[in-house]
């Protein structure tokens, strides 16, 4: 049943894109895209610990492990910056790499496992979505990871709906948010927790490093054409959907990792569209200035 597998895999990838690019929108708006990078690496020790304690992959323990690790990571970044002369970027570079290293080391001591190993961390295992373990919802048999993804999309989008305005103000100017009496600390950590949820849901499928692509590429693409939330989010999502639909059959026929291929396509599309847009915009401005000179 190659075709049915392909459909579930595409659907899962699409759910990853929908969840991640939602959080990615706020991160790019705050000019903290690399927080996504930091979070995705630093979740690893939390996940391994949750796995060791609960003995299973997926489910609530993993979610809790991820949120705790994500909050710890953002807390440590803040603390190192506040307590010493170290700047934020360096502090980030210290915290997430150390946590990632710790996670890999823990993983090497736990031993290889079917679902959680270094390979999965590095590339994700979209191709090996355990399609057999299915959850029955409304008479349809969803594969478990897909169902989990859809659930986390529900959670993340609910909170984003509730706190959209606050997140936007926070991104626009933290000082303004503070002066309006918004709990900026709480909002920051809430955003980090939501991003952690989005990342952990996608982690098994796309791995720690490619997930950044799912976070940042779609909203950056959308920003080239739109300035409203809806426009940016939906156009980014359309671009991801296009890459997914193209990448899955390609990966099947050439035996390549679909997650990598999706990101490669998104990246290429972004760079090409960016270049075209940039060239046309410079030509327009040249035309304008030429016309301006003519009139003068």
């Amino acid at each position, binding site marked *: 049943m190659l075709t049915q597998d392909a459909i579930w895999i595409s659907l899962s990838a699409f759910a990853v894109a929908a969840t991640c690019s939602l959080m990615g929108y706020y991160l790019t708006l705050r000019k903290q895209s690399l927080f996504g990078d930091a979070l995705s690496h630093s979740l690893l020790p939390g996940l391994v610990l949750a796995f060791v304690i609960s003995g299973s992959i997926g489910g609530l323990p993993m979610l809790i492990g991820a949120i705790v690790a994500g909050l710890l990571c953002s807390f440590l970044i803040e603390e190192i910056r506040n307590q010493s002369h170290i700047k934020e970027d360096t502090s980030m570079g210290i915290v997430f790499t150390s946590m990632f290293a710790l996670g890999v*080391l823990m993983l090497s001591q736990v031993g290889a496992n079917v679902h959680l190993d270094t390979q999965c961390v590095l590339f994700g295992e979209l191709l090996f979505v355990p399609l057999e373990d299915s959850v029955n919802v409304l008479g349809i048999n969803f594969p478990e990871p897909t169902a989990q993804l859809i659930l986390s999309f529900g959670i993340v989008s609910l909170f984003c709906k509730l706190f959209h305005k606050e997140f936007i103000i926070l991104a626009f100017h933290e000082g303004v948010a503070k002066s309006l009496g918004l709990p900026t600390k709480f909002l920051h950590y809430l955003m980090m927790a939501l991003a952690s949820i989005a990342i952990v849901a996608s982690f098994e499928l796309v791995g720690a490093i490619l997930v950044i692509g799912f976070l*940042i590429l779609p909203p950056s693409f959308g920003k080239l054409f739109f300035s409203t939330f809806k426009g940016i989010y939906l156009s980014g999502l359309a671009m991801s959907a296009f890459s997914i639909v193209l990448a899955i059959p390609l990966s099947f026929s050439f035996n390549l990792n679909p997650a990598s291929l999706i990101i490669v396509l998104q990246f290429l599309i972004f*760079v090409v569209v960016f270049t075209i847009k940039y060239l046309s915009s410079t030509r327009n401005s040249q035309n304008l200035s030429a016309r301006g000179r003519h009139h003068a």
Partner: protein
Amino acid sequence: MSQYLIEAVISCTLLGFISGFLGNFLVVRKMALFGDMIGHAVLPGVCIGFFLSAYEKNIFFIFFGALGAAFVANALHEFLSNKLRIKPDASLAINLTGFYAIGSTMMAWLKDSGKAGQTGLDRYLLGQASSISREDLSFIAVLTLIIVASIFIFYKEIKAACFDYQFSKASGLKPQVFLIFLSSLIAANVIVSLQAVGVILACAFLVIPAATTVFYSQKLLSRLFLGALFGALAGFAGAFFSLSDANVPTGPSIILVSAFVFVLSGIFGPENGWFRKKLGTWKDKRQHQTEDFLRCAYYFYEKSHENKAQLEGVFKRSGIKNPKLFERIRKRLVRGKVIKMNGEDSVSLTDKGLTLAADMVRKHRLWELYLVQMMNFPPERVHANAERVEHLITDKILKEIEDTLSNPDVDPHGKVIPSLNDLRKHGVPGY
């Protein structure tokens, strides 16, 4: 330990040395995450080098392939960032993940062709010291020499370009050339350390040892060498741990050692370390207690013109709630020969104590006057603030205040501002 393992450990130590050394420039230029991007972006270059060297792990091919990829990624980052509403952070994230995805697709393809599996392309992801050959070691040694030598030859120019670009440009030092040169050295360093720490942790190898040095010194030159020392330590110990347990990849092992050194330095470091800061606040607190005690004793001296104060009165006036704490402060002051006891319940200030007390009261009253005259505070509201600020006024600030207020004699409450002359006038012995 065999010859072969010793070579691996030496290589990692050398790599640590050079990474910790160069990493300082990444830290001072706030480019840590740029290093992260370069680290990930060289992966396709490594694959191409691997392919071009006909599936042999030839370090020259891989080095120049990776260097090419680093240049392309850098150029793309320059192009994308700050244009069409794409900010530098987003551009870094996009390049990082995009290049990594291209690299991992290439790797999968190379693996699929069946020739890459055994030769250890995988080891470039998380690092494996045991894959470092003798050829690699000599390459690393030469590169170390080149990097250290070129930093010292152009030390002045590079330092100027990093700290003050505009000044450096105005002085005709060509900062743009030297920054590109520096970036190339950093990229070269990242590439050679891939076998030890892997693409994902490459930036940490540069950043963590260098960041550790902020707890030791503020001078660039000493930080360069300290960073090199910490890096070498991490490289040595990390490689050692990893080689003694085949399951442990070298990269995480090295990074965890350097993170451990970072945490220790953060706690015990002489420059702004946690412990040093706590010690500082503790010393300040003791100092303030002493000064408050003396000021209260001086109050009674001023009132009765007799150098004798009841302990009970000083206690009440000092605002200290805990009698045991007060007792401890009193004992400390007696030991320090600042006060002396007249029997059980009365104290007098020694000469030294009287000078300190007069100095404190002088600062207090001058500050009160300053607040009233210069900042238009109502006189009845300045006391509480002066009680806090009096401890912080240095001799230099005192001189400024004296000059601004043209050496006044009386504070806003009509009390005499003590000076050494007054003390002499009052017949205090020793003046």
